């Protein structure tokens, strides 16, 4: 009884603080002219994804295929990738990671939102406009066994982009192919072999060589190592790091292996059912996760050191299955499996709040594991009471639009104040 009382009073304070913070943040954003916030002072973003949406129509069978529903594969995803760095995109199967990658490479046409590559919006670009872009954005595929045409030699696979874009005369293609094969650690004399003569790791290297052929500035790596065994994974990851250091390529690194992402990416975005639930730099995500889904994901990572000392963190088991993206849950998409979900979670979708210099989280109750607040932090911002019902006295913040990048001000949850850069 006593505890509850003190909690409630504390929460009341929090809600008030949230109101203040909302106003403050709105001011700060207005001062910044609503422009997308700059991520890091030195690095300018090469790719900026702004509220990207991809809804796949679900069609009825038969000759007259009416649209009977939509799979909301990607629903309002925003992030930035700075030049020559890596953004890791993690999440379980079917959460929309690969779709996001295919949208950025424009294998799919997005339903809505913007993809700004070097400032130019390519979301609605026509095929003819896309052709120059194909040289800048390339992709490394997941399965090295289906990503190489079995009827073509390695030389023609790696050289095909050069032939299509006519960047080199025909007699110069072979030397360039051999140079690329050498870069990825293959014997340059193997250009006239066929893919079936190589192992999985070697095939993935061929795929990497092909992606590098046109000297792209951004590489979308769609689970580039998940089809390889562990010893080969390390080699390929090291190769990708060498390539990044040598050629200054930016990576969008899609994976579900959290250990590899931690090794490779200074910044990580966690996706769940088509939305980013938490995004931040490596330390914010791995040692300061504030979203219950991120915490559950991290607790599932096997840790050798902890296993050796016998004192492992208790694993968080999520109940149930991922809901269908055709009919996602109302409000927060994670609420059906969330251990701390409350009324408000079913009524309102949590906005992606910035809670650190480079850390954003989409949760009504953000907090470290076991320290989640009892009252929703976001109620004030949304203009509702703690149950999620409209609060006539509240003044909802108008500045909750989720923009890519980070603002200069944020909600400092530890000190219950506004943090500033």
């Amino acid at each position: 009884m006593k505890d509850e009382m003190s909690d409630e009073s504390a929460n009341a304070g929090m809600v008030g603080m949230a109101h203040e913070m909302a106003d403050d943040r709105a001011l700060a954003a207005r001062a910044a002219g609503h422009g997308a916030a700059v991520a890091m002072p030195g690095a300018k973003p090469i790719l900026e994804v702004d509220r990207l949406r991809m809804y796949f129509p679900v069609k009825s069978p038969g000759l007259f295929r009416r649209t009977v529903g939509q799979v909301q594969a990607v629903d309002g995803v925003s992030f930035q990738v700075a030049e020559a760095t890596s953004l890791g995109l993690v999440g379980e199967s079917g959460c929309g990671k690969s779709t996001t990658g295919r949208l950025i490479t424009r294998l799919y046409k997005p339903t809505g939102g913007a993809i700004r590559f070097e400032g130019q919006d390519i979301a609605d670009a026509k095929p003819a406009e896309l052709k120059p872009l194909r040289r800048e954005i390339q992709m490394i595929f997941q399965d090295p066994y289906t990503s190489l045409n079995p009827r073509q030699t390695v030389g023609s696979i790696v050289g095909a982009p050069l032939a299509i874009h006519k960047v080199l005369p025909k007699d110069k293609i072979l030397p360039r192919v051999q140079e690329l094969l050498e870069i990825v650690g293959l014997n340059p004399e193997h250009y006239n072999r066929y893919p079936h003569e190589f192992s999985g790791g070697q095939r993935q290297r061929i795929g990497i060589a092909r992606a590098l052929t046109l000297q792209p500035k951004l590489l979308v790596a769609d689970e580039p190592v998940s089809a390889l065994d562990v010893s080969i994974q390390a080699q390929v990851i090291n190769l990708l790091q060498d390539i990044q250091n040598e050629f200054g390529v930016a990576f969008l690194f899609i994976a579900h292996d959290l250990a590899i992402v931690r090794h490779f990416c200074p910044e990580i975005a966690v996706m769940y059912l088509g939305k980013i639930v938490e995004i931040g730099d490596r330390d914010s995500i791995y040692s300061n996760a504030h979203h219950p889904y991120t915490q559950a994901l991290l607790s599932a990572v096997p840790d050798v050191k902890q296993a050796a000392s016998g004192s492992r963190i208790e694993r968080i088991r999520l109940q149930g299955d991922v809901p269908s993206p055709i009919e996602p849950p109302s409000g927060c998409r994670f609420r059906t499996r969330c251990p701390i979900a409350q009324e408000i979670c079913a009524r309102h979708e949590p906005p992606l709040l910035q809670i650190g210099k480079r850390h954003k989280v989409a949760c009504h109750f953000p907090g470290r594991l076991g320290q989640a607040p009892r009252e929703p932090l976001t109620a004030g911002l949304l203009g509702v009471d703690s149950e999620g019902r409209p609060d006539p006295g509240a003044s909802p913040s108008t500045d909750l639009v989720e923009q890519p990048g980070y603002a200069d001000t944020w909600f400092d949850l530890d000190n219950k104040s506004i943090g500033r850069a």
Partner: protein
Amino acid sequence: MTLPASELEIHETAAPGGDDSVVNVAGRSPTQLAIARFRADRLSMISFVLTVLIIVCAIAAPILVAVGVLHPNDFNQDLLSDDGVTPSGKFGGVSWSHPFGVDPGAGRDLLSRLMLAITSSLTIALTGTIITVIIGAVLGIVAGFSGGFVDAVVGRIIDLTLSFPQTMMLLALAGPVVQMLRGDVSKVPGLGFLSGPDLSNGLFVIVILAAFGWPPVARVVRGQVLSIREREFIEAARLFGASRSRLYFKEVLPNVWAPVLVYVTLLVPAYISAEAAFNFLGVGIKPPTPTLGNILAESVSYTSADPTYFFLPGILLALIVVVFNLVGDGARDALDPKSHR
């Protein structure tokens, strides 16, 4: 390093020098591997040699006729017995100058007629097969790759074609279409020399074979394309901005060749026997131009009077069909090493 001739040592000594060991490292393509597997199968190789012989026969026959070695249309009344119908002598008048005997009623050399019959039958079967495969492959690739509405439309056309009563069509259309073909072909400038009843009759058979033969090819190709278009190398090609024709012919087509090739080798014998069956129904090239079909159709009336004349064309037809089928089976096994008979 105590093993003197181990592969390891050879590799180690060769590798630093590099040049000698890496000159000839050309890989073997899937096609080359399939050919190697085909060559290893003795039955397929024997059938293949026989197939080549048959094709050589078919090409040589008209040349030999022109040169005057074969005389398919010379009447030899003196070789017939007193009744003026059956050939005199044993086994249908077999002799050194007529190794297969002569045909009853006219006394024409049967070897010459059979060789020329192979030419006309094979021409019809091969032309029919080529047209069938082109129609089937193009519609199959387009339907499979486009999907959606195009796929549905092609699918319904396939259903419609398959549900048509082919034999009825054949008999009902034979008269008017043959007439039409005769008139039209001779009107095309430069094709006047092609006119004639044999050509229009033969063309009609080819048209019927192709018009009703393509749906299975289209289905096979479409099925293959459906699985290939989802592979990541197609996405990779798209990422490079590959054109539609490049996707169709450089990325997809080489991967559907194998089942198409198998289908071709099985379609040729089917069409040879179909031509024979059509002739039985009175449709197709008419005598005196010999085809396997019209010789067989004629020989049926001589089963007891001149059994040699009945059996020889029958055996030849069976041999050709079996040999082509064996080549087709061998090709399938070679191209798809995972399938087992």
